[in-house]
């Protein structure tokens, strides 16, 4: 048998085995691998490389070596899933670089990080001033996780005490001009509703590249024809505006009327309406 046939045969066999081995070793990203997993991956590749281009090599030896280099990391991974102390041993522990806003010089030295390295890692996290950091820790994977001081953290709705309407994921209901029935059913809507909404925007279904519906059944579309401007959904802002207008009208009536009873009635209802507005306001934004 000529050498090249052997090479082809071995390559195909080893590629298949390597494919499955790496698949079983898990879905971790390359950046999340610890040094041990990283090296065992390289060794696996190296074994395959040697045996594919070397026709005289004993393929059995190669397979045994691959099995060992697969089984040991696999076992290590399995045991470290079960045991915390073993995990600390194999994956290493994280190292605190900044605590209570103070840089731990000893820890930096221990991990072989210079001040420049630390500053670079901080800049990676969009921190340019080391004193902005409350706490920073070097993860076993080599990334630096940074907790900025409270005043340097981005403002959230929680900080402002704002109440926000809960939001569920929007569903794509039309893709490439074709209606997707399952997402529609998830929203408990049907094709009739979809046609009505599209009619309201006066677009035809064939012209829709993508249409998404949010949790309140508002439809947003993108068309193939980009020259057509699509109206933003106005239902909810319009409703809020109408409610506000009615409330103002009622207040006006109560000021205008001279009938005491009617005045009271208008005032009472204007207050009720205000309560209703407060209730739905943040759902309508």
């Amino acid at each position: 048998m000529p050498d090249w046939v052997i090479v082809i045969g071995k390559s195909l066999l080893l590629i298949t085995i390597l494919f499955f081995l790496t698949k079983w070793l898990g879905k971790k990203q390359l950046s999340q691998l610890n040094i041990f997993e990283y090296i065992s991956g390289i060794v696996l590749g190296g074994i395959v490389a040697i045996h594919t281009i070397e026709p005289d090599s004993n393929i059995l030896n190669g397979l045994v070596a691959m099995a060992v280099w697969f089984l040991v990391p696999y076992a290590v991974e399995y045991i470290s899933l079960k045991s915390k102390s073993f995990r600390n041993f194999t994956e290493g522990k994280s190292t605190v670089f900044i605590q209570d806003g103070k840089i731990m010089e000893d820890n930096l030295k221990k991990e072989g990080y210079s001040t420049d390295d630390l500053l670079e890692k901080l800049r990676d996290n969009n921190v340019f001033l080391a004193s902005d950091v409350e706490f920073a820790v070097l993860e076993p994977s080599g990334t630096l996780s940074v907790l900025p001081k409270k005043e340097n953290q981005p403002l959230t709705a929680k900080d402002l005490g704002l109440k926000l309407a809960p939001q569920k994921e929007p569903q794509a209901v039309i893709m490439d001009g074709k209606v997707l029935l399952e997402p529609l059913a998830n929203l408990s809507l049907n094709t009739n509703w979809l046609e009505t909404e599209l009619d309201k925007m006066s677009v035809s279904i064939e012209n829709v590249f993508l249409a998404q519906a949010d949790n309140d059944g508002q439809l947003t579309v993108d068309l193939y024809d980009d020259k057509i401007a699509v109206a933003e959904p106005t239902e909810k802002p319009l409703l809020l505006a109408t409610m506000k207008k009615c409330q103002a009208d009622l207040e006006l009536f109560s000021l205008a009327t001279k009938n005491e009873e009617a005045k009271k009635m208008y005032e009472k209802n204007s207050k009720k309406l205000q309560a209703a507005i407060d209730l739905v306001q943040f759902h309508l934004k």
Partner: protein
Amino acid sequence: MTVGSQVKTCFSSIKSVEASLQMLAEKTYEQNSYQAFKDAEAIITEVKNDLQKQVIMLSKEEPQYN
């Protein structure tokens, strides 16, 4: 516009608001939003009933404007 017709306009706006809220409540699949819309709808219905009485009363008071 007379007071009567102004109140009538407001009354129909309130009716439209009620219907919109009802529709939104039926369309949403988020429990909190559903409850808020339902509660608001109940309030609006009370307001609507009061206004309806007022509309009837005003049309009796000013029959010449009907």
